């Protein structure tokens, strides 16, 4: 069972950091809604407050890791330019998509949207984490601030969902492949 170095890195970027961020989003929303909505009356313990602060900081770290690995490690592999006369575009995903009229939109709309919309995620969740660390349970006293922070978290899920979906589809039609093979497991001989 082998995987190429570039495939492994793409997996870490998408399935590791990105998917984990998306999973974490629902937890953050539930926690913000259950304990910190302005209408909540139940007392918040210091432990709960500390938990959500840490949770949001981890989410922000995941969002930054996702966009930084995507932009500075995966994207250069995606947009690599083949030498003139190259017939096999397997190692050049962008060129492979652009060479076929039925897949060109995955680049011209899919990747063009993904590469920018993903950057709204770390900005939004870093702000949410900073505001929560500053206000904690007192967020209940600032209903407009609470609603706006929740709005940014919702938009961050949408943006991360768009980027994740497009990333999965792009990798389906033109996988980022190459680099040395990494042996994951040895199978039994037939």
């Amino acid at each position, binding site marked *: 069972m082998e995987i190429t170095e570039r495939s492994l890195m793409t997996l870490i970027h998408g399935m590791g950091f990105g998917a984990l961020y998306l999973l974490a989003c629902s937890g953050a929303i539930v926690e913000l809604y259950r304990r910190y909505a302005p209408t909540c009356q139940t007392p918040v313990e210091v432990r709960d407050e500390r938990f959500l602060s840490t949770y949001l900081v981890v989410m922000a770290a995941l969002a930054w890791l996702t966009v930084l690995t995507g932009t*500075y490690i995966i994207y250069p592999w995606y947009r690599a330019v083949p030498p003139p006369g190259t017939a096999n575009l397997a190692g050049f995903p962008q060129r492979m998509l652009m060479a076929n009229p039925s897949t060109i939109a995955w680049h011209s709309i899919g990747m063009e949207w993904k590469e*920018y919309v993903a950057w709204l995620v770390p*900005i*939004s969740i870093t702000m949410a984490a900073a505001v929560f660390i500053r206000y904690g349970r007192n967020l209940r006293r600032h209903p407009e601030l609470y609603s*706006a922070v929740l*709005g940014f978290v919702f938009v961050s899920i949408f943006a991360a969902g768009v980027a994740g979906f497009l990333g999965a589809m792009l990798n389906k039609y033109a996988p980022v492949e190459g680099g040395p093979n990494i042996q994951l497991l040895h199978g039994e001989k037939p």
Partner: protein
Amino acid sequence: MSAKDRSTSVHAQDFRNGDGAAALLAAGIGSFAVALFALLADKSNAVKSAMIFYKPTGPLSGVTTSAIIVWLVAWAILHWRWHSSVITLRPITRAALILLVLSLLLTFPPIADLF
């Protein structure tokens, strides 16, 4: 400080919202900067070339780095001006959310191509 003064001070601190407003509006500005720089790099070859901070990544490196700088500078300035104040939040939250939604729309290529 008397007990009454202490109580008033704690009460005032509870309602201070300037640093939250600063973080929120700066996030809106930063998000919009991503979309604006992306749009400018798409429309102008000069901007596109100027945005290549790291060649393997192309203009994406400059667009995102510039937007992050705009976001952090806006946050620092707004925080410095508002952190100990009580701000009327409604226009700030509206502006921040409008900037965020605009940035979502403007990064979508079929909409960006209308300009």
